[in-house]
């Protein structure tokens, strides 16, 4: 079965613990985690809140990557799943539910939505999958916009504020950091599990996996639902972070932004989500200080990345490091 997998993904994750690339990857992941843990000690308060946002959006990007990179399905409704969790969390919290209960309900709601969407979407692939998920996401957006009595319509919902001990940015950051670390670990285990391998098999050849006796629709359904579950977790964290939700949290723009983060970081690299989220959020924050046309700058950067690193930043680094080690070992 391994032989049927494309070589790049084998290099990417398959031999992670054995090859030199694998060792380097482990070291860089640990290093990255260390940097993320240490940064709030040196950064000013506002930047800590931006960093919190990076972590939350990295989870969204990774959940998209689970489908795009490992199952070969590019989703345009993950923003809507993310935002559904945000809506549910704020809606419950403003009615006096405890924040933990509200978050759990938000994640459940997002997972259920993902399951329904999954049932509808898994029968398609390629551009049809893209269009179907786009339409499903727009349905959620439409409901949030028009169901004024529940969602507050255009004006959105205002949350009750964070619990006392999370009010300051640094302590909230560390709570999010721990959550995101656990979520990332779980996702990494999933994509490296036999289930993850099956997903990659389906990506590379659906018909062959079918012939080998795998239940392809069931696997795709599970992959979609699990991915939606993680997007929902990001959404629930975002609810606590922003303490406000409006239809822009379920809009297509968010799905696209999540996908851009995945692509910039590197599709099929999982951890690329962190790089993509950091790059795009940093660009938004820094460039918009200097010009209103930051979106043009973002577009230009995106084009440059696509030309010089079509596999994303992390994909490019891996590729470069692989070449360098194989040359030096020769």
């Amino acid at each position, binding site marked *: 079965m391994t032989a049927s997998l494309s070589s790049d993904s084998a290099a990417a994750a398959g031999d992670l613990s054995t090859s030199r690339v694998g060792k380097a990857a482990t070291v860089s992941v640990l290093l990255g985690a260390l940097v993320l843990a240490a940064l709030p000690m040196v950064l000013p308060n*506002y930047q800590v809140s931006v960093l919190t946002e990076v972590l939350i959006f990295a989870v969204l990007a990774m959940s998209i990557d689970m489908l795009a990179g490992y199952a070969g399905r590019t989703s345009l409704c993950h923003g809507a799943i993310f935002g559904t969790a945000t809506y549910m969390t704020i809606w419950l919290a403003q009615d006096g539910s405890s924040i933990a209960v509200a978050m759990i309900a938000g994640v459940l709601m997002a997972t259920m939505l993902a399951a329904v969407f999954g049932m509808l979407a898994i029968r398609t692939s390629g551009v049809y999958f893209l269009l179907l998920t786009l339409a499903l996401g727009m349905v959620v957006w439409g409901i949030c916009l*028009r169901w004024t009595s529940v969602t507050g319509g*255009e*004006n959105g919902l205002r949350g009750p*504020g964070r619990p006392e001990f999370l009010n300051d940015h640094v302590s909230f950051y560390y709570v999010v950091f721990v959550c995101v670390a656990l979520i990332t670990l779980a996702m990494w285990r999933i994509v490296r599990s036999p289930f993850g391998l099956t997903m990659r098999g389906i990506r590379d050849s659906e018909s062959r996996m079918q012939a080998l006796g795998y239940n392809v629709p069931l696997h795709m359904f599970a992959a979609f639902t699990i991915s939606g579950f993680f997007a929902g977790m990001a959404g629930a964290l975002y609810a606590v972070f*922003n*303490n406000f939700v*409006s239809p*822009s949290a379920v809009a297509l723009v968010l799905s696209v932004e999540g996908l851009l983060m995945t692509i910039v970081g590197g599709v099929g690299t999982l951890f690329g989500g962190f790089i993509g989220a950091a790059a795009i959020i940093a660009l938004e924050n820094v460039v918009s200080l200097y010009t209103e046309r930051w979106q043009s700058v973002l577009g230009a950067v995106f084009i440059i990345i696509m030309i010089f690193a079509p596999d994303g930043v992390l994909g490019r680094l891996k590729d470069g490091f692989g070449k360098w080690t194989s040359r030096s070992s020769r």
Partner: protein
Amino acid sequence: MDRRTFLFAGGSLAASIPLSGSWMARAQGEPIRIGLMAPLTGVVASGGREMVDGFQMYFAEKGGLIAGRPVEIIVEDDGANPDIALQKARRLVEQAKVHLLFGNLLANTGLAVANYVESTGTPYFIPIIAADDLTQRHRISNVIRVAGYSASHFPRPLADWALAQGWRKAATISQDYTFGHEQCGGFSQVFRAGGGEVIGQFWHPLNTSDFSSYLGQLAGLGVDVIFAMETGADATRFMQQYRDFGLKGNIPLIGAMNMTDQSVIRTMGDEVEGIVSAAHFAEGSTVPATQEFVARYEAAYKNLPSLYGFAMYSGAMWIDEALKSIDGDISDTGAFLAAVSKTELTGSPLGTAVKLDDYGNPIYDVVIRSLRKRPDGRFWNEPIAEYPAVSQFWTYDPEEYLRQPAFSRDYQG
């Protein structure tokens, strides 16, 4: 000059008056930093630009001083998106350490920022954000609507005026979002209470390009008057198609002030003539203070001032007056907010005194305005009737009024 942050050269002023050096040194002090948020990109970018223009025009006229202290204005683009607005507000408060926040255009951006400043206590002033509940059911003590208005505020006198014309049957058409629900709610409530009948209400999505189906239905209702609530490009298209479908001249068209605002009608022609709206400001007024302001604005920006420019200009003046009354000392937020609430604005382009009600919303002399052609061919809003001292609660008792639910598509009074 740097577009983003512009700090007036207060120092050069001090240098030019050497004798009063010691006074200047005391008065100058640390600059007062104001975070100004406006949508400079996105669907309402033109309105956002005029907000910034009006705000900066005030301080340019005052030599860059607020209550004798230099002022530093940090402009941020909210992208007409509440999530971006929230992020920008965080940056302004936590990184740029502004003393106060100003601005935003769309209700959802304002509500997001209001919810954030509730936790930080930063004074936040909203001359444009009209969401009723910010000065009604969900008040936040540090969010004050200086020089602004609540959405259902002005359609009420307009409904009263329509009844006085002998019109008894009306229909409304509006963009389908809260700002529209609230304006139509204010109109319908007063119109019905006065013996009128609202026969049909139409809600269309934002950015509707073809109004034919709505206009067809409106024409067939047999109403005496149509109230329309449109903003931006929808307003332009609606008024054009209202004429194209032959309704103009047959059924009187009245509307929300934002539909006939300069930001909309500037590029339009005869199709807008005679449309009636109600507002606190009318650029075609004969009041000397208004005329002077319009002339200054026209000289500076080559355009007649819109609601956005006017409101931000007056809002800046309001804060300036309030700060003067406490000698420019902004360190005590509570005292500053109290001063703002107490301030009675006398020098605004309206030419009349304006003060806040107990709920933080101004009380205005509301004018009924009709669009007329100026000698130079441009259209502007000329006053045709006046309702003195109109509060956001119209003639109702505030406490009783607040017991009714907020306006929505399902609740129209």
